[in-house]
Structure formats: structure tokens, C-alpha cells
């Protein structure tokens, strides 16, 4: 099936070459970072995790969201999603790969990575995150690949594939729950110390991932003969609507607990994010952008007319992606470190090399995604023809 990736239009190859260039730039800068250390990033003694870990967190959500097309198909026998499950699974593969790469570029001593396996410490959530992420990657490769191979041959997938698909459903929830636990169990990081961190992560995952998938489906329909289906996209729209409303609801709950209790440590990070603290407020414009896009997305998703109409649904999906990315890919991680344990504000902002390395990782993910989707779409076109 891999050979489908080797035959494509000039647009396909142009896109891959463009991604390869971004990957190359990122890789060269990463080599530089590997040589001189993480001092080339904006991270500091006070904000010791930054853009890399924030992207990692966001992408774990995208990976987990694959379950939103897998679950209705396998569990509720929602046949219409049969066309899309493999897209969800392949998106999960690309997202988990990016997650692993973001962890790797963030490590101070990458060659020692295998110490996590050589000296396993199950008390560390990072140990479990490694297990669930790699397990999820494997599950999606096995299920996605074999289901697609069966489709190509015009036969029903084997029973063991279905068993693995069932396993992958709770597994998807586990990857984002465990990722939330990375943050939600740390004493002294009040912004993260919240029991609804995992539910919040899942809600934001289940709207942002399907929103990305929806946007990709529109592109696929434009560029190929394969149609993911009107009904399918409409169902995705409903999933995005419910999950995004839930996501915003959870966020408002955080605001209530912090500002009604009036406990300074619980308010400080939020004040820093939205208004600035002690004269520092670099993230405030971003957070208000998040608010703006959230409101637009909410309106477009709640009003039945705009949710069902395809062009407004696309706008809503784009708004959801922007809003959730700012919330999780910027605010959540940086906000957790500001103010620092001495209640001082030390600001963080990613440097150019840091952003370009991140772009390189994203490009790698999109490269894998493009190749996998190319294979899937080619086979679906062949089967349809």
C-alpha cells in the first residue's frame, strides 16, 4: 500500500518538498541547540517548560481526538463514519509522532532518553505518559493500516483488528488524562492544581482534533475524488460543538473557583494571562484573541443554521483550532510558571530558533500525515472506482 505515496501530482510533491525544507531548517537549528544547549530557547530558570511542551500538550489532544470518529463507528455502529475512521487513526499517528518529537527536542540530554526504560520509575507520571503514548501509536498503526488493507482487498477486517480498535477507545482517553496528570499533581503550581484538568484537556481535545480533521476533509474533497461525506462532516460539526461548549464551560468553572474563592495563588496566573501582573502582560493580547475566537466559534456552532452550513462550519472549525491552540499551546503551560515560586514575574517568550524547531516538528507531522492520507485517499478512490 505504501507505493500509493510514491505516485502523486506535482502539487502533492511540491507540498512534500515544502515540508521537507521546513523540516531541514528545523533539523539544522536543532543540531545547533543540541550542540550549545537549550539556552537558545526563551526558557529560563523560572519558566522551565515553554513552547515545546505546550505544543506537545496540544498535540496529545489532537491524537486523542481520533477516538471521536473511531468510537461512533466501532461502538455505536455509526456506519457513516466508516469512511473516516482511518483518517482519524492516521491523524492520531501523525500527532503522536509530533508529541514524541516535541518531548525529544525539549530534553537536555536526549541520548539518555532510554534511561526512562532502563531505570523505570512508575511513581513518575512521565513514565506512564511514555507507555500510553507509545501504546496508542502502535494501536493506531495496527488498526488503521489493517482496516485500510482490508478495505483495499474488499474484505471485512479481521476480528483482532476490531478488538484492538475497542482497546484503542479507552486508551485514547488515557493518553490525555495521563498528560493532564503531568501538571495536575504538582504541589505549588496552583494554576495546574485542579481536578478538572483532565476533563478540561479531554474537552479541548475533542473539539480541536475533530476541527482539524474537518478542515482536512474539506481540503481532501477539494483536491481529490474522495468525498468524506456531507452527513459525516455535519456529525463532526456536532461533535465539535458539544466538546467546545464543554471546554469553555470547564474554563469558566476555573474562573469561578479562582475568583470567588479569592485565593491569590489561584488568581495570579489568570490575572497574569489576561491582564498582566506587576507590569508584565505579554500574553494578554493572545488570551483576548482566544476569547474573541471562542465567542465567534460558540456563536457559529450553537446557531443550527451556521453549524449546518458548510462554509460557516469551516470558519467555526478554524476559530476552534485557533482558540484551543492559544489556550493550550501557549497560555496553559506558560501561565503555570508565572508567577514563579517566589511570587515574582519572570516572563517567557519563545525565540526564533525555538519557533523554527517547533515548525520543523509540525512539518514532520504534516509530512507523515500527508503521506498517510495520500495512501488512504488513493485506496478509497480505487475502491470507489
Amino acid at each position, binding site marked *: 500500500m505504501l507505493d500509493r505515496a510514491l505516485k502523486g501530482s506535482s502539487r502533492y510533491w511540491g507540498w512534500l518538498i515544502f515540508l521537507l525544507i521546513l523540516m531541514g531548517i528545523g533539523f539544522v537549528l536543532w543540531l545547533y541547540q543540541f550542540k550549545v544547549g537549550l539556552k537558545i530557547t526563551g526558557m529560563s530558570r523560572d519558566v522551565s517548560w515553554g513552547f515545546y511542551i505546550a505544543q506537545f500538550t496540544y498535540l496529545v489532544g489532537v491524537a486523542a481526538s481520533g477516538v471521536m470518529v473511531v468510537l461512533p463507528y466501532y461502538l455505536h455502529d455509526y456506519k457513516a463514519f466508516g469512511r473516516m475512521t482511518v483518517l482519524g487513526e492516521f491523524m492520531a499517528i501523525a500527532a503522536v509522532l509530533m508529541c514524541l518529537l516535541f518531548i525529544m527536542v525539549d530534553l537536555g540530554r536526549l541520548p539518555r532518553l532510554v534511561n526512562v526504560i532502563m531505570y523505570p520509575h512508575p511513581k513518575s507520571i512521565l513514565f506512564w505518559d511514555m507507555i500510553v503514548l507509545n501504546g496508542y501509536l502502535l494501536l493506531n498503526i495496527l488498526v488503521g493500516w489493517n482496516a485500510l488493507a482490508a478495505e483495499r482487498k474488499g474484505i471485512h477486517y479481521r476480528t483482532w483488528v476490531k478488538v484492538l480498535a475497542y482497546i484503542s477507545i479507552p486508551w485514547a482517553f488515557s493518553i490525555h488524562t495521563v498528560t493532564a496528570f503531568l501538571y495536575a499533581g504538582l504541589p505549588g503550581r496552583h494554576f495546574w492544581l485542579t481536578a478538572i484538568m483532565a476533563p478540561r484537556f479531554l474537552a479541548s481535545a475533542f473539539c480541536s482534533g475533530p476541527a482539524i480533521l474537518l478542515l482536512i476533509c474539506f481540503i481532501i474533497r477539494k483536491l481529490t475524488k474522495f468525498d468524506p461525506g456531507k452527513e459525516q462532516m455535519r456529525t463532526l460539526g456536532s461533535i465539535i460543538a458539544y466538546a467546545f461548549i464543554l471546554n469553555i464551560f470547564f474554563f469558566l468553572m476555573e474562573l469561578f473557583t479562582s475568583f470567588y474563592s479569592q485565593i491569590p495563588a489561584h488568581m495570579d496566573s489568570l490575572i497574569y494571562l489576561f491582564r498582566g501582573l506587576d507590569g508584565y502582560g505579554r500574553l494578554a493580547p493572545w488570551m483576548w484573541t482566544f476569547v474573541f475566537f471562542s465567542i465567534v466559534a460558540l456563536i457559529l456552532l450553537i446557531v443550527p443554521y451556521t453549524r449546518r452550513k458548510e462554509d460557516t462550519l469551516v470558519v467555526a472549525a478554524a476559530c476552534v483550532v485557533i482558540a484551543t491552540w492559544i489556550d493550550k499551546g501557549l497560555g496553559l503551560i506558560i501561565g503555570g510558571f508565572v508567577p514563579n515560586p517566589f*511570587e515574582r514575574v519572570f516572563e517567557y517568550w519563545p525565540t526564533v530558533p525555538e519557533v523554527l524547531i517547533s515548525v520543523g516538528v509540525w512539518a514532520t507531522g504534516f509530512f507523515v500525515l500527508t503521506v498517510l492520507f495520500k495512501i488512504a485517499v488513493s485506496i478509497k478512490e480505487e475502491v470507489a472506482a
Partner: protein
Amino acid sequence: MGISRRGFLKVAGLSALMAALGKSGFELLRPGQVEASIPLTKGKRWAMAIDMRKVTPEIIEECKKSCHHYHNVPEFDNPKVEIKWIWGEEFEHAFPDQQHEYVSDLIKSLEFPLLCNHCSNPPCCRVCPTGATWQREDGIVMMDWHRCIGCRFCMAGCPYGSRSFNWGDPRKAPKELNPGFPTNPEFPTREVGVVEKCTFCNERLAKGQLPICVETANKIEKDSFIFGDLSDPDSNVRKALRKHYSIRRKTELGTHPNIYYIVA
């Protein structure tokens, strides 16, 4: 032809993956040697009581100098990448939860020496994925700089900001700020990309010597830093704590810090 090309791509992909994994396994055969060579000392729960009635900013400065000199901690003169094992901080920042508008002038004027609290329930050790930071039987929270992968989970886990990361190569710290670096050939220098912090001078304890900061401080002002075993009711630390009122940093978090500050 289709089959063979497909087969080829599978094999090529797998071999690339194996090569990548094999390469990274290289550096892993050596770590873990360090802690095995350190003999455990007799103490059961090392702790420090710092007498704030005696400590001056000069004492803290001297402690910092001797500690950083002894442990080859480089100076960068840049808060973004700085590494510190012991340093001074105002009451407001050392005890943000106990700060208020009308705190006494005396307390306000003080500088508190801060260092790793060697918590009895250390969150840093809980979150470390490799056991590169761990608690010894005598309570010291130790670091294995040969095992640390530089994930910085411990820095997120520490509520006291006691941990520093080598953002750059400490051996390449600016020469003009670090004359004669490494200042102590007996003590290892670190490499880029690992976390470090105060070790309660475990190697000095093993030789029956006091931590270097305690020695330095007490040379200037006798009994300003009191170091001893909390599990021994007759230890100097226990005696001092029995007699005076002391506070600890962020006790509500349940980490049970072992640095006590005598304030009255």
C-alpha cells in the same frame, strides 16, 4: 513489482528505526555508578536550623561564594540561565504565603538564605522519570548528574524554586566571571542539559565535615547555621528548635521541608 517495492519500503523503514534506537542506547551503559560509591552517613534525617537573628546579607553572600566555589557552580550574571545552590531572598519572596502589609521592620529588612529544603516528602523525587533525583536513607535529596535526562519535571515539581538547569555548557561559562573555573578539582563539573541543586554536601558529611555553607557562616557568626540530625532528640538542631520559634517555607504543601528558620 508492487509487492517487492512495498517489502523494500517496509524493511527500509524498520532498519532506519532500529539504527536510530541503537544509536541512542549508547550513552546508557554507564550511569548509576555515582550513587553506589557514596557511603551513607550516620544521620537519619539531616536538617538545618538557620538562626535569622544572626544571619546578615554578608553571611549569605559568603555562604554563596564558598558553596558555589566548592561545587563548581558557574556565574553567568544573567537571571535567565543562572544556576544557584544557595542565595538570599527577602521575606516577601521567601515566605510569600506569610507576607503581609504590616510585617515588622526587622523581618522586612532581613535576607533569608534559601537552598534545597531536602524535603521529607520530596515532590521532585516523585516526578523524576529515571530516579536521577532520589532521597537517601539519611533524608538527603540527591542528584545523579549522569542519569538525568534533562526533562525538568523536577523543576516544575519543586515548589521552592531550588533547582537549576544547565541551559548552556557550564564549562564554557564566561571566563571573566569565572576565573580559575573549575574552582574545585575534587568536585565534578556538570555538563550541558542536566538539572542540579544543593546536595547538603553529602561528600563532606561522609568525611565527617559540615556542609560548606554551615562552616562558612559559623566562622563569621557562631551558631548562625545549625546542622544536625532531627531524629536524635539531643542533637544541636533539635535543641535549637525546642528553644526557639521557627518557621519553614510553604508547609501547607505537605512536602515537610527540613530547613528551619529561627525567627524569635
